[in-house]
């Protein structure tokens, strides 16, 4: 089962439907967590949402508790939330991307996606990861083809994945394949 933690975003149910294609999904607000279902789930998804990771200490707690024990996938705010828990700095960016379709490129040969492959993706973010960000086992695996902003990370040892863009957006052309591959990937 996949547990989706909703940070009261208006895109969360697109995420729910996308993951529903692969497994049973349960979704709740971040302040109304069903702990027994959360414990039973194999995968936790941290949804997009307004604000910054600092606004969601409860989600950070859940991340720290289950890191390494379950697959955890972060989308947009969720991606920033994971990085924030790993002591990264999440900062405002000068150019803001809301409702943009951009091209991202796989930049790491450690990625589960083929290096140099490109995807068209939808973006809704005011904030970004401050770089350099160096942390053991965390690889920045995708970047914006134009601006080079970090767009995805993978941590295969702890089974953690994050996208700054929105795989569930209608602006993302290969969202389903991205999610499928991540759900299938095994810890290494």
């Amino acid at each position, binding site marked *: 089962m996949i547990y989706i933690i909703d940070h009261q*975003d208006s895109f969360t149910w697109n995420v729910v439907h996308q993951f529903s294609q692969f497994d049973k999904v349960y979704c709740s607000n971040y302040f109304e967590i069903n702990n027994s279902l959360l414990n039973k789930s194999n995968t936790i998804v941290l949804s997009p949402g307004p604000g910054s990771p600092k606004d969601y200490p409860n989600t950070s707690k859940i991340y720290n508790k289950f890191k390494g024990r379950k697959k955890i996938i972060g989308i947009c705010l969720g991606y920033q939330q994971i990085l924030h828990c790993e002591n990264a700095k999440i900062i405002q960016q000068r150019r803001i991307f809301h409702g943009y379709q951009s091209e991202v490129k796989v930049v790491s040969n450690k990625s589960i996606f083929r290096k140099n492959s490109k995807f068209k993706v939808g973006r809704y973010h005011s904030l970004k990861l401050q770089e350099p960000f160096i942390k053991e086992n965390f690889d920045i695996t995708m970047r914006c083809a134009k601006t080079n902003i970090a767009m995805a990370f993978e941590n295969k040892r702890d089974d953690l994945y994050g996208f700054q863009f929105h795989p569930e957006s*209608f602006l993302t052309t290969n969202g389903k394949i991205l999610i499928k591959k991540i759900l299938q990937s095994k810890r290494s």
Partner: protein
Amino acid sequence: MVLKLANSLKIVFYKGVFYKPETIIKIRDNISIFSNKKKHEFNNYFKPTKILSPFKLNIKYQKYKKIFDIFSKKIRQGETYQIKICTKYRNKSSINPINFFWRLMKSNASPESFMIRDKNYSIVSCSPETLLLKKGNKIITKPIAGTLRKSKKSNRSSALKFFRNNIKETKEHNMIVDMERSDLSRVCVPGTVKIDKEKYVEEYRHLFHYVTTISGSLLKGITIKNIIKSMMPGGSVIGCPKVRTLELLNQQEKENRNIFTGSFGYIKFNKDMRFNIIIRSILNYKNTSEISAASGVVLDSAAKKEFNENFIKAKSLLELFK
């Protein structure tokens, strides 16, 4: 999710009004009348229109700019991705709604037009926007995001070209499409929410709109209440994401929106229903006429342009008072 309103936003008009029709007149190829009334008495008492004061705008440009700048900052901080500021034109008047409605239909007929005349209030609307249309287990929404003022030279295809090439309009629209997909997904079978017709142009008297049609198949066991809760208020008149954006709006908009950005529609006994978004409307209540309009703050928008857009949206209604 119920949001608490600040005290300053006291309710001026009714929160909701329900009617059960006594008489239905169906105008198709022929006209048929269904009525519960045995003896029909025609109430031919019409109030004449009286305009007692000129229209005034409740938020002047300076104040608008201030709110606009606060929201722009919130967008930079990621608190909201798009937010709609509502301004109101108001005058002292009593109107003859039937006269107004027919004149409006001549000048600016639109797919979601309606009129209500009751003892103590009336509403005249040429809303173009369908919030939801439910037939059986099929549900459709048709969000509008994108407005272009008409000129002598413009036509549908030049409008489409404008919207397609305009990054600001495109991203504002994209956001609303993803948001409405999500609202529908909450009540629909996974995998059934589809974009039926993406980014097309509808033409009105003073303006063009950029529209997308999205549909889905309702989950079994979903109630009318579930659907209404998921879809209302329509995202295109609030901003995105809904809950946080509504909280921000409640802090800045000091007046209740009343009927504006609510919905008018019907629920049939077989649970089919249709609701619009109440925009482009006159509310006449307690000898005051109120016309509201909202336009969006996204990062690339200019305060002056959005402020003026509100005027274009209200124009065909303001003209009725001339």
